[in-house]
């Protein structure tokens, strides 16, 4: 088997992987970017709507445009781009990482001093949320439907119902309407929508597509093709309320019920995963395995590709400058009002710039103050006019005030602001 050596191997060629590879190359490393599909761009290839790039390029771009900008930047460097290449095995051999790739050309081995995992995420399926009944054609995740419509130009159904108000579901409700299907409604088990407020307005309200909150699909019918679904109201614990069932005729059910970071390779490397499904990592995007970095949706599910690029660039740069050595990890201790905070730790030994954190609140909140305290001393107070679980927020801590030792205690609190 041919084997080639690199400083940094980036796995996954979506916006995260491309940004990481570019940053690593800029930092002087010899880089390989490995992508399973025939083209770079990841999931953005199928996101034909606009709204990408406002932060990164100061322009409203579509997903493919945003991806193409990055791809052009990558192609203008000497980064080795291995598309159509699937990483089947990954491991550590002495100090170096080894990966086995399979492609049309055969097998090939790659070694690298550090690895960046940018493998994206996958969608939660019908079975994972306990949809019961028969198993006809016409039940698919919103992302799969997006592929059929935007890449293959085919409609998965004529009378569609969307379960879950995640962003992809909202965007697909609009897309299907524009492409000639009728969308009967979006059903959401939680009392509030799961997607961004702007998507609810632009994708549902503008097209008169009804949104039913606190309700869910409890059963599906149809032998070969989906014929109808049963919807029920749910209580506060999200359990269906008996007696509220109604049957809606439709031939297609789209699911937009959550994204799960894809971390099969991380697990093969023995990287511990956190509650959100991504690897537990420090502010340099390094996981708890030395030399293994994680970024993009594989690290935590982001709702903005621009954020993905930003944090991925950091991962790439840090992977380039990675040298083995002891870390002084101090874990943030957020209170229960945070649904997720990422990264989870600061490495006191490798602190140069202000570390950046992303978080989601557990519930909808009005004016709120986020306060960080280091060993009882307030080092950050940031006000938010409102917080919603679907919108990911960002803050940074002042590096200058972060004199960390192994026994430092760093807490994060949310308080109602007046």
């Amino acid at each position, binding site marked *: 088997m041919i084997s080639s050596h690199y400083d940094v191997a980036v796995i996954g060629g979506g916006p995260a992987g491309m940004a990481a590879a570019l940053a690593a190359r800029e930092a002087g490393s010899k880089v390989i970017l490995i992508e399973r599909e025939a083209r770079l761009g990841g999931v953005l290839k199928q996101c034909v709507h606009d709204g990408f790039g406002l932060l990164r390029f100061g322009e409203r771009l579509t997903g493919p445009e945003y991806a193409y900008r990055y791809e052009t930047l990558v192609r203008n460097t000497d980064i080795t781009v291995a598309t159509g290449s699937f990483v089947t095995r990954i491991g550590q051999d002495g100090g170096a990482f080894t990966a086995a790739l399979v492609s049309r050309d055969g097998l090939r081995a790659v070694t690298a001093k550090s690895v960046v995992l940018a493998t994206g995420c996958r969608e939660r399926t019908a079975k994972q949320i306990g949809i019961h009944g028969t198993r006809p054609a016409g039940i*698919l995740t919103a992302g799969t439907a997006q592929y059929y419509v935007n890449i293959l130009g085919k409609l998965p159904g004529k009378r569609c119902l969307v379960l879950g108000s995640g962003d992809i579901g909202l965007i697909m409700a609009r897309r299907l309407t524009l492409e000639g299907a009728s969308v009967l409604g979006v059903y959401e088990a939680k009392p509030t929508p799961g997607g961004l407020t702007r998507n609810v307005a632009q994708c549902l309200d503008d097209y008169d597509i009804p949104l039913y909150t606190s309700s869910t699909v409890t059963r599906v019918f149809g032998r070969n093709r989906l014929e109808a679904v049963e919807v029920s109201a749910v209580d506060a614990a999200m359990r269906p309320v008996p007696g509220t069932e109604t049957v809606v005729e439709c031939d297609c059910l789209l699911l937009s019920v959550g994204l799960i970071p894809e971390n099969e390779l991380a697990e093969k490397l023995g990287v511990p995963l956190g509650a959100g499904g991504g690897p537990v990592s420090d502010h340099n995007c390094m996981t708890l395995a030395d030399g293994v970095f994680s970024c993009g949706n594989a690290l935590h599910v982001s709702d903005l590709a621009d954020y993905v690029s930003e944090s991925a660039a950091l991962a790439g740069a840090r992977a380039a400058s990675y040298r083995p050595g002891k870390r002084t990890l101090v874990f943030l201790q957020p209170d229960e009002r945070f649904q997720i905070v990422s990264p989870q730790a600061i490495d006191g030994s490798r602190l140069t710039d202000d570390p950046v954190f992303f978080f989601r609140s557990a519930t909808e909140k009005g004016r709120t103050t986020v306060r960080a305290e280091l060993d009882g001393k307030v080092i950050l107070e940031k006000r938010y006019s409102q917080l919603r679980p679907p919108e990911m927020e960002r803050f940074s801590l002042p590096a200058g005030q972060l004199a960390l030792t192994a026994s430092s205690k760093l807490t994060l609190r949310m308080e109602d602001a007046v």
Partner: protein
Amino acid sequence: MDRVKESVKRLKAAFGDRVALRDHGHYVRLEGSLRVWEDVVRAGSIAAKALKKRKSVVNAIVCEELPAPKPQEPAVRDLVLDNTRPDVLIIGGGVVGCAIARELSRYKLDILLAEKEYDVALHASSRNDGMVHPGIDLRRGSLKHTYNHLGNRMYDDLCRELGVPFNRCGQYLCFPGRRWLPALYGSLVYWAWQGLRGVKVLRKKALRQAEPALDPKLTSALFFPSAGSVCPYGMTIALAENAAENGAKISLNTVVEGMEVSGGVIQSVATNRGTLRPKVVVNAAGVYSDEVAAYANDQFFSIHPRRGTNALLDSKVSDSLTNSIVASYGMSETKTTHSKGGGIVRTAEGNILVGPDAVETPEKEDFSTTRISIENVFAKHRRTVPALSERAVITYFTGVRAPTYEEDFIIQTGISTRNIVHAAGIQSPGLTAAPAIAKEIARLVTSYLREQSGAAVPANESFNPVRKPIVKTAHLPDHEREGLIQKNPDYGVIVCRCEEVSAGEVRDALRRPVPCATADGVKRRVRPGMGRCQGGFCSPLVARIIASETGLPLESVMKSAEGSAVVVGGVKEVLP
């Protein structure tokens, strides 16, 4: 005691005049009408129990609440089989029918297997636990016991010949507390008498070492080394393919709808593809085997369908649950039923199966799942392995068992009709028993044909028991995988990332002796979509490969049966 009088008495006590019993000699027939299905089944069981197998039970009691569902109209009607005269017509492409087809293909015979669905193994044979049972709770002397033991012993050789992965992992039956130990040691004689070899008693330490995830309260166990696991549809497809390679014809989408019988002989068989005139008919129709027997004027038993639901877990959690098959005794309040109690099974592909439950149903093809079944299954088996979590579920499915009221297999030539052989009532452990059942059915078929023609049926000289399976590239050593990709680059294009399936393997699946050019057909043969994302990424890619192999537009690619198109048309087409 007069058994018939006894059953009449017991039925009267339970249901008064609403149920009548007619004695037909070798069987009794129950008639009347009852409101709920549970009572219909109960009536059949009461009668069977009182009859003590002297006679069998045909239960024709009508259920008022749930009338029997109408049969599905077949997707096709043509005459491709009209006027054909096969030597043997096998009805049913489950594991039993396919094993029979392969067994009969050892002879120079014109064999036709008719399967009503779009693929083989769509009923019980793809919706079970895949356990090759040791036969723990089978009564000696029953056909279940006999054929389970014979079948179990055939599995290693058969799977080697057919290239089907088989894992003889053994089964642990666990008990709470040391107080069970004397009884367990005492039981070893019983197991030896039952024909089970190598059974062992395990104490706490050895058990913990073998199966660390068991509930700590389970401190003693029996180990049955002859238990194993196999992919049941993989097995069925392999049997069908090998039968086809040896000359048997497998006709899918072919429904047997009736028969013309005179003089105790089936003269012709009506199907949706024309009328056939076989010399002999094999009934391997699963839950419909009683109806097929009725077509042949030979119904002396009834099937009462019994559903069972299983959940399948992500292979990631397998190592933290079990390396083999585990079940426990004495921790559950639920009474054991006629169906094997199930357990936690490590499948031959490395996932974990949990289940099944057992629910009586009048609907022979109700494969739908319910939340309550899944909850019950988990609650039950968490008593064996507490770490079992519904969060690891990637899919679940329901199968329908085909028990008779006697709760035993029927493996015999017809009683009133001479040219039919029944392999009916093949409930659990039918997967295990299938190879042995097939041998016996082949014997019955060939001896009937010999009697008719006066000459022994000649052997098929070119019979080859070895089937070449589809190569799983991800399991090959590097140099072999490399060689394959150099010959055909499609083997290097991964379409399913969860199960690491290449485009080459998907194409292979479409070029087999029993092809099934649907998304689910490909899935059952090479596994794209079987993993944790359940086809989220790969289903459009697989659909495209099917379209390119078959030359059909994407709109004509089906998920499963006719009418299950994966897409309904192009975007912006004017929709009616």
